[in-house]
């Protein structure tokens, strides 16, 4: 009898742990940020950051802003081609929507986190911490790697 009671207690304990574990995981990571690249090598006052942002939750979210040491000002910008003309603007409303269950790509020639008043160019391969502020998920700190400006997610040959 004692043996059965022991097995039941262990099983209940394991199930409880598993439930807590999966619950805390989904609550802790409603937003995941991957493939963060920092375009910060140029001898100019500007730079940009590209990344993939996934909203794993059932609630719409939005990227409101970012902070990076060495960037005096950061804005969220979008770039589009209109009849072979490059048009860059701050994003409407100052935020990038990250709809529930979707992935939004910040990439060369498109949405990006724009660094202005750059203190100094950074060397290739440098790791750069970036604080991202989301409307619902709060502040998430990720690390980007400094890459060549021509490098998209697939490398230079895919540009």
């Amino acid at each position, binding site marked *: 009898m004692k043996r059965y009671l022991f097995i039941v207690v262990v099983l209940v304990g394991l199930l409880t742990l598993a439930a807590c574990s999966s619950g805390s995981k989904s609550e802790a990571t409603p937003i995941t940020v991957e493939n963060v690249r920092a375009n910060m*090598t140029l*001898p100019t006052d*500007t730079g940009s950051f590209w990344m993939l942002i996934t909203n794993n939750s059932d609630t719409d979210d939005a990227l409101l802003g970012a902070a990076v040491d060495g960037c005096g000002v950061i804005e969220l910008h979008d770039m589009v081609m209109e009849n*072979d*003309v490059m048009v*860059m603007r701050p994003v409407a409303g100052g935020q990038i929507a990250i709809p529930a269950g979707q992935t939004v790509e910040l990439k*060369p020639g498109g949405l990006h986190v724009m660094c202005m008043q750059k203190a100094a160019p950074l060397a290739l391969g440098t790791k750069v911490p970036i604080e991202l502020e989301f409307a619902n998920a709060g502040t998430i700190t990720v690390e980007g790697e400094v890459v060549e400006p*021509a490098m998209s997610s697939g490398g230079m040959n895919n*540009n």
Partner: protein
Amino acid sequence: MNRTKWGVLIVLCWLVGCQRPYQFAGAPLPVPQPAPDIALESADGPVSLHDFAGQYTFVYFGYRFCPDVCPVTMGKLKQVKADLGNRGDEMAVVMITVDPERDTPEALAEYMGYFDDSFVGLSGDQEVIDAVGKPFGLYYHQHEGSAASGYLIDHTARFFLLDREGNVILSYAHETPLDDLFRDVEYLIKTQ
């Protein structure tokens, strides 16, 4: 006709009539236009597009504040030049600023030198830039930015290739893949 004659005929057909002409990735100009012989300012003094005669010369209109479309283009051209190996010096790259207010010749020299020591940045008075850009169909428009950016500039993202005589022969969309750019330049250098 015996078998040998048929064979000779087929080979002749392939050599003369069946080979397709090379298809450029760039859009050929119906009639090559001579690039304007108007001096702009480089960090080393006045430079005209005619000074690049003898090389295949890419011409781009951009500005240093531009965070990725301009540097992505320069980065691709840097790679094309590197891929050409010992024939890389038969190709030149020139960026003419559409932001002469912020882009001094010295700042442009530093910017272009980041990509390749041979790349040339040119600035000048707006009227002169307009005159040089006119045959290329250059469009640019300054619009108000934030307190930090001051202003941003929409601009033509196409870039152009001049032949060895300084004629504009091809134009390229910003999205043109690196491999296609390389193939065009390699073909021209080897055959023209």
